[in-house]
């Protein structure tokens, strides 16, 4: 490993791999850093090692990842798995950790392809063992062939929920119920976006196909569910909710929830890139142009880490960022960049067709984003409840960072990843302002915790 690269790519999912594949040619020094042991990111997890039988059950969208991985393997890019990136600054210095040893690399161009994470939505009981995110269920299945053995309740909102139910159905897992918390009013609200979504009809057909299959299999699908909660003595034993005005309970030791995904922005935030609140996607994302340039020279973003557009779009956005990096490095001129980017840009725009519809249809209701149940834990690490956050606002701490200082919310090991959005929504709700005005937790490095011993290894590195 060198300590300087012309191009460093953070993340080995579709965006990062596609960027590397297009850029790592003609002697460009390019490396992909990924914290996973295998490439593919979360979406194509274990894509190179998965047994064929399991890959088939996961569906054709998953298997697309094979081509991306193969093309990447043929490129000249260096690939460093098990490499945790813990810092990125505006000088394009990248702190990494490998085998407990910390070091700092530098690069002329950095593409952050950090992907997405599940949108954390706190509800009563969400910290109980047995309550997990749907993405966690999918990762267990993809990477380990591990599925629920005693039934599962799926709850929340968004296409992943349907896909996971369908995948579980094919794996012989008992899906006790699928509880959709999307308010029925969303369906009407999304209608104006429907014509454009028809341009991406393959997604619609797929979604409808899943629903039909689930219905045929007799899986109870309840829509317009509210007041979701998990209950139990120390661990999840039942799932409670309201449906058609009635309070209901399902016995289950496992509840997988999904409330859409949001960009993983901790690195771009730590670098000081400008971020904006995306009202439609209900999340913060780094500002960028269509080539992926952020407001910091030489730092680009691609894929879901730049804004949620899905795996296919990530691939094209990755290529655009790769081309832009080559242009910035002086390897190709502007017209070559533009010519080679024509198709990719068209694809990226094409992949947007379905999004406004999905974003409106699966919009998370405000009541879920800013819970009115004071006892609900918001910060899983420091165990700060919603009521404490609302009280801090009433005491005059009227932005997310002040609330953080005062309550310690967001100061645990996850560094606010799980509570940041919820705090912003609660503070906005309590103070009657918009989430946009509330701001985001200031990024405090390291982006991933380091032990004192690991950090101390950096000293030797610098001394050498």
């Amino acid at each position: 490993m060198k300590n300087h690269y012309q191009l460093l790519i953070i993340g080995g999912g579709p965006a990062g791999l596609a960027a590397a594949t297009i850029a790592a040619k003609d002697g460009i020094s390019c490396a992909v850093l990924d914290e996973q042991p295998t490439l593919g990111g979360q979406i194509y997890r274990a894509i190179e090692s998965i047994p064929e039988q399991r890959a088939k059950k996961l569906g054709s969208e998953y298997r697309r990842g094979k081509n991306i991985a193969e093309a990447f393997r043929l490129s000249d890019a260096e690939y460093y798995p098990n490499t945790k990136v813990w810092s990125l600054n505006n000088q394009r210095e990248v702190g990494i950790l490998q085998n407990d040893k910390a070091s700092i690399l530098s690069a002329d161009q950095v593409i952050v392809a950090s992907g997405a994470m599940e949108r954390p939505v706190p509800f009563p009981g969400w910290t109980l063992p047995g309550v997990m995110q749907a993405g966690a269920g999918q990762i267990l299945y993809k990477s380990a062939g591990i599925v629920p053995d005693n039934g599962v309740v799926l709850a929340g909102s968004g296409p992943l929920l349907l896909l996971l139910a369908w995948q579980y159905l094919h794996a012989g897992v008992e899906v006790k119920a699928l509880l959709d918390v999307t308010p029925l009013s969303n369906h009407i609200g999304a209608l104006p976006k429907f014509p454009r979504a028809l341009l991406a009809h393959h997604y619609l057909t797929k979604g409808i196909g899943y629903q039909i299959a689930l219905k045929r299999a007799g899986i109870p699908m309840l829509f317009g569910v509210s007041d979701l909660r998990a209950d139990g003595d120390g661990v999840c034993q039942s799932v409670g909710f309201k449906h058609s005005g009635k309070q209901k309970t399902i016995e289950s030791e496992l509840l997988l929830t999904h409330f859409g995904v949001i960009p993983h922005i901790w690195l771009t935030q730590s670098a000081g890139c400008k971020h904006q609140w995306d009202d439609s996607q209900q999340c913060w994302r780094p500002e960028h142009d269509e080539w992926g340039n952020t407001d910091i020279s030489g730092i680009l973003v691609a894929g879901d880490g730049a804004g949620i557009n899905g795996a296919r779009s990530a691939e094209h956005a990755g290529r655009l960022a790769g081309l832009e990096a080559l242009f910035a490095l002086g390897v190709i001129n502007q017209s070559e960049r533009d010519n080679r980017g024509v198709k990719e840009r068209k694809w990226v725009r094409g992949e947007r067709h379905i999004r406004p519809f999905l974003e409106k249809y699966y919009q998370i209701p405000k009541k879920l984003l800013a819970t009115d149940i004071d006892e609900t834990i918001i910060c899983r690490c420091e165990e700060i409840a919603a009521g404490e956050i609302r009280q801090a606002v009433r005491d005059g701490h009227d932005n997310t960072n002040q609330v953080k200082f005062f309550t310690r919310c967001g100061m645990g090991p996850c560094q606010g990843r799980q509570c940041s959005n919820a705090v912003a929504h609660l503070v906005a709700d309590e103070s009657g302002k918009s989430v946009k005005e509330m701001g985001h937790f200031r990024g405090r490095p390291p982006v991933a915790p380091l032990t004192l011993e690991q950090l101390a290894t950096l000293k030797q590195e610098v001394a050498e």
Partner: protein
Amino acid sequence: MNSDVIIIGGGLMGSSIALQLAMRGCQCIVIDKASPGRHSSGVSAGGLRLLNRDPAEIPLSVEASKMWRDITSLVDSDCDARFPGQIRVAENKADMEKLEQRAALVRSLGYEHEEIIGKQELYQLVPALAPHCIGALINRTDGYARPYHALTAFRRKAESLGVKYYPSTEVYNVEKEAEIWSLKTSQGIFSSPILVNCAGAWANKFATSLGEAVPLEQKALMLMVTERLPHFVDPVMGAASRKLSFKQMQNGSLIIGGALVAKLDFAKEKTDIDWAQLAKSADTVISFFPQLKQVRIVRAWAGIEGFMPDNIPVLGQSQTHQNAYHAFGFSAHGFQLSPVIGKIMSQLILDGQAELPIEPFNINRFN
């Protein structure tokens, strides 16, 4: 907006002065360019340290130490203050001599608060310490508080007595007409007969506009904080000859400092953590407490502060204008002094003199 006094800077010093003035019936306005306490005040390490003070600061710090003991009576909150003492550890004979000289100096000034302790007592107080240390200098009454809680308590108490805060109010221009100060700001004109400059790292702008520029330097000091740990150390720890400063807070996490400077773009107010420095600091911590090797750092940050060349603040009346006062340049150790600064500055403003000696902090000392 009109008032008796305008204070520029709503951090701890500005708030403490506003509070004391308000307690004596004065109408105060506090204006702050951002959210008050955004930089040094809200994010400092919160050390309540009388140990190893500059001799000029000792009288003030001794009084501040008393005030912190009873801080609730002043601000209706204990600010999470704790007083487990503060220690400077000697690792070798040279260190020990240095500490003994220091103790002798403090005694010669008529104070008894800095004591030398031997190896045995050191390890009774800090059993977790690596075995190579030979003694220490201690002040048993020192401690720490939570900076943001203190800032909030001072501000709320001041507000309850009628002090008005104007956050996000940037001062463009300071003028005096017919003995009335007039401040042109992003939120309109503010005027009052008395002006107090508590602008921290930004204070030189106002000193300059009063015609008495000072060599104030802006630096951002870094801190790092660990995950929660079982309780293992009481006193705030420092070392005689190495950059070590750390304390274990009530929740179990460690705050590690030691005057480590981050990279700073002052104009943009952007700080960038210098990891090589923090790595050295991590190494120092491990050499004093090897059992902390596997402990995780969850956060690091840097706050922007104003430093004077002699590391003591500028305090007192302007030398160019009557009815203007300065309190800035605390050089990263003002937190402990904050209650007493409010007291003596309010005395200076309302009575014309302070009950404690402040001559060493005169702004004209750099001329």
